[in-house]
């Protein structure tokens, strides 16, 4: 069918371009470890949203989104920590985006979402709800406060906190 050389170039060129793009994101995902959220079910204890240090420099935060706040509202951790966020919703759907990181998740009632980020730069990271959740949606936010690490000396300099979700595991 494709007798015309220009048409043939266009078809193969388009295919090649998209293949290259796809290869790039696969390298990003598996080489650099930049992953999207994945499926995790019913991780207790969401009745007690909390920041828990599970190992030195390793934190787990259970976040419950509800109309129109996040619980906890402030997450304090020292610089250089790796934080796993488990997220669910008590009522309607919400969003959870931590600015200047790759953490971006939906909070859906009945299921748990999970993502991980490393925070090297001290400062405040705004968390916004980016899914419409009713009347007070635009007032719904929280913060990660990364405190400078004083005792142990300077933390590793990484320009941006990197997020990566853990592998998918069923219940």
């Amino acid at each position, binding site marked *: 069918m494709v007798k015309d050389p220009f048409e043939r170039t266009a078809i193969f060129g388009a295919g090649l371009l998209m293949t290259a*793009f796809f290869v790039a994101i696969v390298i990003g995902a598996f080489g650099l470890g930049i992953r*999207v959220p994945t499926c995790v079910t019913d991780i207790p204890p969401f009745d007690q949203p909390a920041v828990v240090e599970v190992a030195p420099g390793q934190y787990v935060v259970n976040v419950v989104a509800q109309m129109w706040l996040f619980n906890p509202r402030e997450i304090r951790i020292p610089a250089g920590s790796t934080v796993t966020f488990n997220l669910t919703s008590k009522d309607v*759907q919400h969003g959870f985006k931590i*600015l200047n990181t790759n953490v971006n998740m939906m909070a859906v009632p009945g299921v*748990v*979402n999970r993502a991980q980020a490393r925070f090297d730069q001290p400062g405040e990271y*705004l968390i*916004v709800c980016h899914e419409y959740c009713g009347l007070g949606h635009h007032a719904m936010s929280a913060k990660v406060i990364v405190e400078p690490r004083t005792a142990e000396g300077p933390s590793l300099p990484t320009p941006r906190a990197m997020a990566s979700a853990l592998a998918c595991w069923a219940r």
Partner: protein
Amino acid sequence: MGALAMPESEKRLIRWHLYIAYIAIAVGIFFGLLQALSRAKLLPPMPWYDYYQGLTFHGVLNALVWTTFNIVALLTVAVRASLGRPLYSLALGWTGFGLMTVGVAAAGYAILTRQANVLYTFYPPLMAHPAFYLGATLLIVGSWVSGANLILTYVAWRRENPGQRTPLMAFGSIVVFVLWYIATLGVAIEVLFLLLPWSLGLVKQTNPMLARTLFWYFGHPLVYFWLLPAYVVWYTMVPRLAGGKLYSDPMARLAFLMLLIFSTPIGVHHQYTDPAIGQEWKLLHAFGTFLVTIPSLLTAFNLMASLEYAGRQRGGRGWIDWIFRLPWDEPAFAGATLSMIAFVFGGISGIVNASYNVNLVVHNTSWVPGHLHLTVGTAVTLTFMAMATWLVPYLTGRALWSRKVALANMYLWFIGVLIFAVGMMRGGLEGEPRRTNLGFSPYLLPEWMPFLIMAAVGGALMFIAGVLFLLNMAMTLWFSRQPARVEVPMAEALHTAADAPIAFERWRVWLAVAAVLIVISYTPVLTQVLQTSPFSAYGFLPSNPAPIR
């Protein structure tokens, strides 16, 4: 050629579709303006204005009503003109129109009375009045009836003309409606089996993850339902309006068929950040999304080649001279071609959205509305506006009221949306959330302000352009006295349909391929969702954090 001329009875049917579309966009862009202003702190609190009620109107009226009524109108004219045969049934056409209109009225009532502040995606467990879900159902069922009328017209033509190649205009239009039947299956199941019984109180709890997944099974091909009618225009009308020919007819058919089979099995690219769906399936849907961009790249090539051919026919030579030879002062040509240019940016930003982990940067930020105003909000909308400059005269027999106003409409909208989209997209990269009344938000960051203002300025220009459009159409309908001499612009092709493989006309085969791809891509996703997500969510009103038990 008596059969070619459209009788008044059919024209009246089409005109009524346009009336509803124009009322819808009039209200829709009014709320669009308020949103853009309110986000930039340029609007005081006003008791009658509820941002999320307005945003629900905006999404429903623009993205669902303005588009669907225009699509039915334009494609009915396209099918009829290219097949040169009367519609299968006028009664069926009016039935479809009636159902859609009653649906819009029912949903409109629910939104107007603030009983459906749930936005046009109506994610549960936010709950709307049953009239909202019923209205959505009727809108879809009505579009099925109107689509059936076109498909039956085509089947009758096929029986009368065995062995002939389907004219490209009809070919593309049939693809649009076949795609629409496949796509709406998802939302029909969602609304009829999950949301309607639940909002009526027949069941108390529902499954938000399942609803999301069914919605996005529909939601992605939905965007192609909007876009493909613009492709039909760009392929089959614009080359004629430009004074040239379509470069390659077979390649256009290839693009339509690829879009038909690849645009449904990829809906999970809207759910990269969702729980309950595994990364491996998200990546598979990302791969499918990249496949579906290929026909759009082919379209870009084919259309550019067609425009270049037209420019050279008009005496253009060299690398760029031909561009200036094109009829940029013809509103229909200019509007449609500016739409294509906007779609270049829309398409590129779409590839960013589709790119799996890169999506983490932009998901649900104002980048996304920035992107979608380049696509459905301009590539599609401005194409419809441009086509109205000949379609309304064609349907009424009255000449366009003002060509100058039409030109101002096209160029102003284009400039407006570029400013608007840059504001929204840059703001999105800085973390501005979408669907959010930021002007009233306690956490509004000062570094967002320049981008919010930019979006407000661009939005205001788009609004003025929209008012010019509505003014021009109203004046043409009511006051224009000059008779119009207009034909449906139908382009010939340089590389004709004769080169297209005969397999391109085997609809059953393509439907089967589409079905197989959907089963492959959605079986694992639905299995995971059903295994992990319970039917445990009670409904909530948007104004109240207490569940409806």
